[in-house]
């Protein structure tokens, strides 16, 4: 029986190979393949950057041929070991009040919803940590209800305050530090997401579950202190 490879690959520049998961396959395969590649560490591989349905493999082009790297990935069998522990579940406080939610009204208007509905839908859902990326501790959380699906801003903001909660497509996420960003901002969390003194330094790990608890601006300030 011919087994189709889970990935299609192509070069992205002279020193990176992009692997894209074939449509229909679960994202979990990416998480497992990622872990397997990190364990195998082919000589010349520099780093692996996960995406929503992809892995970008950065390599030293003078030491590793992309064909050899692709063959290496094909030879890797994503670990099928089953983890019986239930995933850790986080409850993260978010203040959805207007001062912390510059795009909330616009999102509500665009989706034909009341602001309160947007807040309820966002905070009643359970999200899964698909992968980390973008900035230290930034987790891509999947599970945003279809009725809240919006596009990114046409141009990224230059400064998004730390703790800002954004949505884009079917993802939500919290900006751990002040940074440029293009997601629509609908709240802010006082929770610290990244701490180099902790091991691991990131609060969220791939596979974990996240729920949001709405708080008032007063509570936000109290927690922040």
């Amino acid at each position: 029986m011919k087994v189709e490879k889970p990935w299609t690959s192509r070069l992205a520049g002279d020193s990176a190979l992009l692997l894209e998961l074939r449509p229909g396959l679960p994202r979990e395969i990416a998480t497992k393949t990622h872990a397997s590649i990190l364990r195998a560490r082919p000589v010349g591989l520099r780093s692996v950057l996960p995406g929503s349905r992809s892995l970008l493999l950065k390599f030293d082009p003078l030491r590793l041929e992309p064909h050899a790297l692709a063959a290496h990935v094909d030879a890797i069998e994503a670990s099928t070991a089953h983890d019986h522990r239930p995933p850790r579940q986080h409850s993260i406080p978010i203040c959805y009040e207007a001062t912390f939610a510059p795009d909330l009204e616009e999102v509500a208007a665009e989706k034909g919803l009341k602001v309160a509905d947007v807040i309820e839908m966002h905070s009643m859902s359970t999200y899964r940590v698909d992968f980390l990326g973008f900035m230290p501790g930034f987790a891509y959380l999947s599970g945003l209800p279809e009725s809240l699906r919006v596009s990114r801003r046409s141009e990224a903001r230059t400064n998004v305050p730390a703790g800002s909660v954004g949505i884009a497509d079917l993802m939500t996420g919290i900006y751990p530090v002040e940074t440029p960003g293009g997601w629509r901002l609908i709240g802010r969390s006082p929770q610290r997401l990244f701490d180099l003194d902790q091991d691991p330094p990131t609060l969220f790990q791939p596979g974990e579950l996240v729920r949001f608890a709405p708080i008032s601006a007063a509570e936000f300030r109290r927690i922040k202190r």
Partner: protein
Amino acid sequence: MPEVEVIRGGLQTTIQDLGRPGFEHLGISPSGAADPLSLRLGNLLLGNREAAAALEMTLSGPSLRFLGRATIALAGAEMAATLDGQACAHGQPIKVEAGQILELAQVRRGCRAYLAIAGGWPAPLTLGSCSTHCESRIGGFFGRGLRKGDRLPLPPGPVSDVRLSCPRLDEVAPWIFRSTFRVTPGAHSHLFSHADRQRFLNSEFTVTDRCNRLGLRLEGVALEGVPAVASMGVSNGSVQISSNGKATILFVEQQLTGGYPQIATIITADLAALGQLRPRDRIRFAAIDREQALEELRAQAQLFPADFFQKERLPP
């Protein structure tokens, strides 16, 4: 331990080495010197390891009082320097005595100059690197640029092993002062129309004021058909196109994941020259094939002795 006292911090003076690759899956950007070629040159001149930490000085340099002896070297952007008022040249070791003041001026050409020091600037290792990532306040000197009143420790002890064969500044200059950046296809080149790809390659772009270690936003032709793409890993030198059709080059402190399509990727050999661009510089892109890109990279590597390069490996 003898120190250096910061009299004036300069516009953005940070401790940089060759960065901390391999932690991208935690969201940690490799960071590192914006012009790694000049950082390497500074280190080579002093017999340091290629990845020893140096001060990266941006547009307008700092003023530093040395409270102990040191040997230093300058490389990168042409930034006039004086030691106790005496002009000192780039591209050669300079002995500094305790009490002397090193003053760096505005750049005359380029954007970032490097102040290397024999033994490397001591800074705590964060995930294997001394590099400052300003945006997330990781590494270097408390994760930030130098300010008046800061005191940096000087490296202990004398140095050995000064190299005899170093590239000359004029051999390095063509690699770091460029206005044409060679590209190979980006992750999404195939999703752009032929007309848009031609427009991109045939236009001149101007570096805007929004130009820093995260990325360089360009002003120029707006592309017409911008495809939608899923969030994915992106690398230093990727040219991404925003929904409004405008181009941004991702740079050393880049965000690791992007949701905008990438029309092209700057070849590895031309990345150092991005670190020397400043607002209002005009640049163009030129497509070359992968073999040529690697040929350029090999040629660039030959500037340095082969045993100068450290072995890379993916950290745990």
